């Protein structure tokens, strides 16, 4: 499944968290050039453009994405309450919009709705890496075809890591992207859960999660073959 394009880079943390929690894969870009340069082989699955801080930049990006032979869609625009006027005469630049402050449930509902209309199902159903498979629809994980018995947070952590193989994450990043605000124990909680996950993956597969010294953790092989 190709990722969603998200603007700006970095996006507001609550947007990133909402997308992660719902299992969307996404990539943030800073401008139209980055959007072109980093476009995945299969094309962007859609776009979420936040216009409330850099309005100019946001609309410039929308124009580049839409005023082409194959306009990118669906495109969801997030605007502040005072910006409704700016939408006038720009109906062709977006498919739907959402008023800030952001409400995750509404955002999720709108994305789902947009994709159902455009006939594309972007919610990724499976995440796989080597012997590991996660079915995001049923919340079940398996290794070598054997079901893994995980708690909810262990599952969420494994899902996040497996969806971003080869990438190193700090404890703080994992805490904010996987746990959000709802946890006991601070950054050490990440270590605790990593240990539990390794124990449940079993000796043979515990090495799927690497400790990157004085940085954090990486799932699977490094992108640079390390």
């Amino acid at each position: 499944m190709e990722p969603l394009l998200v603007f700006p880079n970095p996006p507001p943390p609550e947007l990133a968290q909402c997308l992660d929690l719902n299992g969307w894969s996404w990539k943030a870009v800073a401008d139209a050039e980055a959007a072109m340069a980093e476009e995945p082989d299969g094309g962007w699955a859609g776009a979420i453009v936040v216009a409330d801080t850099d309005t100019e930049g946001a609309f410039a990006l929308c124009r580049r994405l839409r005023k082409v032979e194959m306009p990118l869609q669906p495109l969801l625009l997030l605007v502040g309450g005072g910006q409704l006027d700016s939408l006038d005469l720009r109906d062709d630049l977006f498919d739907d919009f959402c008023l800030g402050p952001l409400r995750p449930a509404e955002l999720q509902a709108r994305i789902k709705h947009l994709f159902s209309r455009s006939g594309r199902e972007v919610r990724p159903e499976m995440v796989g890496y080597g012997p590991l498979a996660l079915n995001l629809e049923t919340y079940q994980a398996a290794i070598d075809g054997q079901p893994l018995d995980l708690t909810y947070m262990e599952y969420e952590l494994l899902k996040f890591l497996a969806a971003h193989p080869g990438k190193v994450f700090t404890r703080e990043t994992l805490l904010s992207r996987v746990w959000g605000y709802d946890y006991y124990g601070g950054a050490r909680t990440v270590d605790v859960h990593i240990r539990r996950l390794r124990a449940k993956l079993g000796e043979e597969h515990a090495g799927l999660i690497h400790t990157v010294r004085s940085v954090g953790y990486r799932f699977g092989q490094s992108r640079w073959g390390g």
Partner: protein
Amino acid sequence: METNETGEADRGPAHEHRSRDQRDYVLRTVEERGVRLVRLWFTDVLGRHKSVAISPAELETVLDEGLQFDGSAIDGFSRVQESDVLARPDPSTFELLPWADPAEPSGTIFCNITNLDGTSFEGDPRQVLRRNVDRARRAGFEMFCAPEVEFFYFADAGLQPTPLDRASYFDLTTSDVASDLRKQTLHMLEALSIPVEYSFHEDGPSQHEIDLQYTDALTMADSVMTLRLAVKKIAMDRGVYATFMPKPLNGVQGSGMHTHLSLFRDGKNAFHDPEAADGLSSTARSFIAGLLRHAREITAVTNQLVNSYKRINEGYEAPRYVSWARNNRSALVRVPIPKFGKIESTRIEYRALDPACNPYLAFSVLLAAGLRGIEEELPLPAEAAVNLYDLSREEQRDLGVASLPHNLNEALDEMEASELVRHALGDHIFEWFLRNKRAEWNEYQRQVTTFELETYLPNW
């Protein structure tokens, strides 16, 4: 205002979303894995495990609305008026039970107990710990715990405890039984998300120790409850009896639950200070000082049985004096020296606890005593340099070293006068605990013991 009373503080839409997703995770897993029975777990005031089983068909309603039951049958749950309470499952704790029959998978889930109007029920130990953990968080701290749980295996559940090393002449050899039990137990604990740091024999094949890897206080209290159940269950399946009774045998050291504690602030170990000559921060020093100042008051909670004091009085690995030291195992608080370069593991070890405590209440009073020390910036008394076991009463008095309470009665007197313990436990549990334990002491005082019969009957 402490916090929103249910502990379910309004954390905004992200929190709502998370709760819904956790609930769906549980429901979906139960469906996908063909779970036939879900056990709702909670704990009475004395720290005994309680379980109510429901069918998957009831689960959705129970997750949303809780399960109503009459609390008056549970120790410490009864009240003058309303006796019905709600068990509200905490979906983050959902696990598949690893020892369930594979043909009939079972799930377990810890519950918070609330009143019918949704407010937190004052008799629920888990809520007491949540409240204390929340207090610590408001002061910027997260507490991590790592207990070392000791217990005995006996040949049966009879009143004459027979250690496995003496029961060796039948069946397997004892070392086979013990190592099989150990392997099974570790496997089960890991499957229940309870990683083990070490597991080794204490004195013989009959006494064992399992050291748990640190985690946050609430999760650890849940883990201790699960561990006790798992150890007993696995032993029972092999025809052996496991006990966490603090001192089951004369002349053999008792079972303790030495517990390592550390505080973290902003993800950093708050007990470590690179500037300090000994590496100990002022936070750590005041935390220890708080523990020492309130040690006698909290002992009834950390050592709640008449029998607990038989362990403390005998010494061995159990502390008798209110003291701290770096490398002196007779001290109440030990400060292990972290390995070179491992400053994040700076911690202290409180050595009075025994494994028959209620872990929710015990961690609550430890945290409250330590935090009070930090709030009041208490100075750390001098380190105990001598081996305290060898002290005579006079030397002890001269050094100004207080003893831990000698028996449950003395501990209850100390607790009753403690504003700190009352605040940490809340009025309901504080008062019920004192009433219940006074009754236990009085009952014990009326018993004619084997010691008396053996010592007095032949002579008088």
